[in-house]
């Protein structure tokens, strides 16, 4: 959809990812063996024909900038349009603390200068493979001020999310945060479609009234006055903002249908290329039910695991039900169960790490365990 521009809003994104987001924002948290969370919605936008995407960053964005680069991997290194990374405006000391509406306002020239007249605002922590084109079309065909995308699912008990309720006509009549009492299977995907003119008006009006949070103020507080339509997404969805949901949805990738939905259905998911050689399986390796990226060298035993690029599992090591991030190394005789190890972790000879599926063992980036 050439008429639409994308906005990936990373400002105040809900984050209970503990060690995984200690030094990186949610958008840059590695997921699925070779991706970062932002890859899913960003690729979705590109595969939906959008050629202009702005990423509103907020904090801890070094890894994100390194990952996105010029946007080439997403075909967004364009002369006109393409990828724009917009860091927070901090002319004054306390401005960074202000909400996303304020940052949208600061970048209003960016919106004005774009020739697109529809804006799709999303978050980065919704792992999905979505074709946004029919959703945008539905918005244009209807008369709503805003269209929000939701999914019916009973599988999102581990993440922090918003539930919504609609009337028979599909108009959103109630929204509540995860701690609310609303009983509904309709989970908001935090994807909002509206015209650019409407967005800019909403931004200015809300700021003038002293409000600066897009969802909490501009949308929730105005629910009675706004006409908010709903659009149902039926593909796979993983809301990744807690360690439990991260672990749960990572393990779901071992189900063939989930992989088909997520990695292929509406187009491929693009990511930064690392030029690692194919994974090597040496004599004596034993691998069952695992998702393994390039550059791995497996000599030990791996069961129900996700191995990111360049992970080494030495002979005699046993790794079960775990997620091992990029370039980590598991030495001989180590036993790991129910763990999430961040990048460049070394687990030395003979160590035993044991977590629980509801509270996986966590290791910080670059830590050396067993010294």
């Amino acid at each position, binding site marked *: 959809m050439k008429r639409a521009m994308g906005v990936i809003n990373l400002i105040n994104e809900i984050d209970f990812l503990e060690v995984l987001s200690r030094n990186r924002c949610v958008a840059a948290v590695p997921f*699925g063996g070779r991706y970062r969370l932002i890859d899913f919605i960003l690729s979705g936008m590109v595969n939906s024909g959008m050629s202009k995407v702005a990423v509103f960053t907020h904090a801890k964005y070094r890894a994100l900038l390194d990952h996105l680069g010029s946007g080439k991997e997403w075909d967004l290194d364009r002369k006109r349009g393409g990828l724009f990374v917009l860091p927070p405006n901090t002319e004054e000391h306390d401005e960074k603390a202000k909400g996303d509406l304020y940052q949208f306002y600061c970048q209003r020239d960016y919106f004005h200068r774009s020739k697109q007249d529809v804006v799709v605002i999303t978050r980065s922590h919704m792992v999905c493979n979505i074709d946004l084109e029919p959703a945008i079309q539905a918005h244009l065909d209807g008369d709503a001020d805003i269209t929000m995308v939701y999914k019916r699912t009973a599988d999102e008990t581990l993440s922090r999310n918003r539930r919504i309720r609609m009337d028979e006509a599909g108009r959103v009549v109630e929204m509540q945060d995860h701690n609310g009492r609303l009983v509904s299977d309709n989970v908001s995907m935090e994807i909002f479609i509206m015209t650019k003119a409407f967005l800019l008006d909403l931004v200015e009006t809300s700021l003038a009234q002293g409000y600066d949070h897009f969802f909490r103020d501009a949308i929730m507080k105005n629910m009675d006055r706004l006409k908010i339509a709903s659009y149902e997404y039926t593909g796979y969805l993983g809301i990744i903002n807690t360690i439990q949901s991260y672990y749960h949805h990572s393990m779901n990738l071992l189900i063939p249908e989930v992989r088909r939905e997520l*990695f292929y259905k509406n187009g491929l998911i693009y990511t930064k*290329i690392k030029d690692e050689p*194919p994974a090597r399986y040496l004599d004596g390796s034993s691998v069952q039910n*695992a*998702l*393994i990226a390039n550059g791995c060298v497996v000599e030990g035993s791996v069961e129900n695991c996700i191995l990111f690029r360049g992970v080494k599992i030495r002979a005699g090591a046993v790794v079960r039900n775990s997620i091992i991030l990029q370039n980590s190394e598991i030495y001989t005789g180590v036993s790991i169960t129910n763990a999430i190890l961040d990048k460049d972790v070394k687990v030395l000879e003979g160590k035993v790490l044991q977590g629980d599926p509801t509270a996986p063992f966590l290791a910080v980036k670059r830590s050396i365990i067993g010294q």
Partner: protein
Amino acid sequence: MQRKECVAMLLAGGEGRRLGALTEQIAKPAVHFGGKYRIIDFTLSNCTNSGIDAVGVLTQYQPLVLNSYIGIGSPWDLDRKEGGVSVLPPYMKSAGGDWYTGTANAIYQNIGFVEQFDPEYLLVISGDHIYKMDYDWMLQAHKENHADATIAVVEVPWEETSRFGIMRTDEAGRIIEFAEKPKNATSNLASMGVYMFTWSVLKDYLMKDAANPDSSNDFGKDIIPKLLKDHANLLAYRYEGYWKDVGTIHSLWEANMDLLQEMPSLNLNDHGWRIYSQNPNQPAHYIAPTAQLSNSLVNEGCEVAGCVDHSVLFYGVQVAEESHVIDSVIMPNVKIGRGAVIRRSIVGEGTIIGEGCQIGSVNGEITLIPGGKTIL
């Protein structure tokens, strides 16, 4: 155009006839190798890793796949403002035009391309070979010795000398004799087809060679012997490490199997010398509970539910339950049905092997299944 000290010319027009069905549609440098690469990735990556950022790729035979594969050179970081990679097919000139009649003629016809960069040195390499080499070290040796031409040589087993261009050198490493595929070799130093020339000298010889109607316009057959005859300063540059000319189905298979050694002499996991390639954007591969894997290379996008032993799987390969893949090379997007058995084979891109098919034999020649076929 910005001046470059050294420009590389990569010969990629080879037909690779002995690779049979694999090179019916594509040139030899575009043949798949090592689970994710095409052969030309090695020389292109060598160039970029050696700091050479002006590369002309000379194509002639079936260039379609090769052209689109190389594109503007971004995977090898060769999409540069000045230089970068240029694909150079034969072209028409005001006084007619010609196919490239030989390796030297291909460079001769592109003197104009080289001169744009006004280089001091010209590196001539072949896109048919698999090896990792820092051409910058070779250039340093060439400069230190004030050589007119430096030829990279590698020791080969004496019994194989009759397959190569063999150099005999003096103690200082000067080449004193050159014999193309000799019956009774006096040395076991074989030319790797990697030449560093002082451009002004080479240009002179290319012009003379082009004016000689009896010449076959080939580096090995004409230019090097002529330089030797004229007592030019010819230096042998010794290379130690993995080098392979994958001329036949058997050697292509063998080169793939070489990667499966416990400590392969061609290390692909070296972060200091990465081999770059176009990336097909596939997810990580999946190994099912029913799978058994040993001693194999598996690329992204694969789904393995069967038994894979001592084999190389390219991206997007599916191996169904109860099937066996042994001592084989399976190229991209091949689907192997339940219960199929594949031994000592190379299976071409996109082929479908039906349930229960038996392919290849325990010993004897390597079986080649061309790409795009359905075998039931």
